[in-house]
């Protein structure tokens, strides 16, 4: 059997992904997650002293915390199997990546297992965020000191 023939055979045998249904599922799951996040934002604005601008930070923290608990109980696995990218792209995917790596390597011990692997997937996100925030703040500080812009 030649390579081309084999490729044709494989193509015939593999099931076609139902693109539209997958997109719809991702839309619904991602939309639901974002709606919950918006409700939490409103909750923080209403009952605590946060404005629209400052309420984003506690909202993200709360969402990540909720998803960490869901991942620990195994519920988020079901959600992400159904929703695909809709559950991975929002900030909830970050919490899931941290905790699932920790659970995976639990058997290797607390320090070398969990400690060494907990940020295996999400570590690059944290490093990039901290580093870019540092440099942006540095540039802004210099610009303010020179007098180009004001705080």
């Amino acid at each position, binding site marked *: 059997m030649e390579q081309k023939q084999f490729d044709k055979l494989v193509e015939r045998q593999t099931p076609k992904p139902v693109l539209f249904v997958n997109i719809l599922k991702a839309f619904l799951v991602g939309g639901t997650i974002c709606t919950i996040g918006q409700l939490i934002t*409103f909750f923080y604005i209403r009952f605590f002293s946060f*404005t*629209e*601008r*400052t309420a984003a930070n506690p909202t993200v923290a709360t969402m990540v915390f909720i998803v960490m608990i869901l991942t620990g109980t195994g519920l988020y696995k079901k959600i992400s199997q159904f929703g695909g990218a809709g559950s991975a792209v929002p900030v909830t995917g970050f919490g899931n990546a941290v905790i699932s790596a920790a659970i995976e390597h639990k058997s290797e011990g607390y320090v070398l297992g969990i400690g060494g692997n907990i940020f295996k997937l999400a570590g690059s996100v944290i490093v990039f965020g901290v580093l870019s925030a540092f440099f942006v703040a540095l540039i802004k500080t210099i610009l303010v000191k020179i007098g180009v812009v004001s*705080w």
Partner: protein
Amino acid sequence: MKIIKYVLLLFLLLTACSNETDQVMYPSNDLPELKQVLNSNEAVYGFKGIVDKDDVLVSIDIRRMNQFKENKIAKKITKQLEEKYPDKEFLVTNDLKLKWEIEKIMKQELKTEELTKSVEKIKSLLKEET
């Protein structure tokens, strides 16, 4: 089961926000030109405000498509108002927090000292950056 799905989808698609808009100032509207300035701006369809001595806090409702440039609109209105009333200090924003705080103050009908206290608190909140 299928019917339930369709009904849920209908609810998702057909419901919309419908907040009545109003144009009110608290305790009283002694700035007649404020209404004029705000009504002359097409992007603004409602406002709520508080007047406390020299401080004027105005919460504006901006039309959906204009919300991309909400900061610009708020800044422009602040400038226009400061030109009309140079002795007052204006704070114009479309932040939800201000709107809800103003509604709370109106409901409790705060007077003089308490009003000044809560106005100062709101001002420091809106200046917060982090």
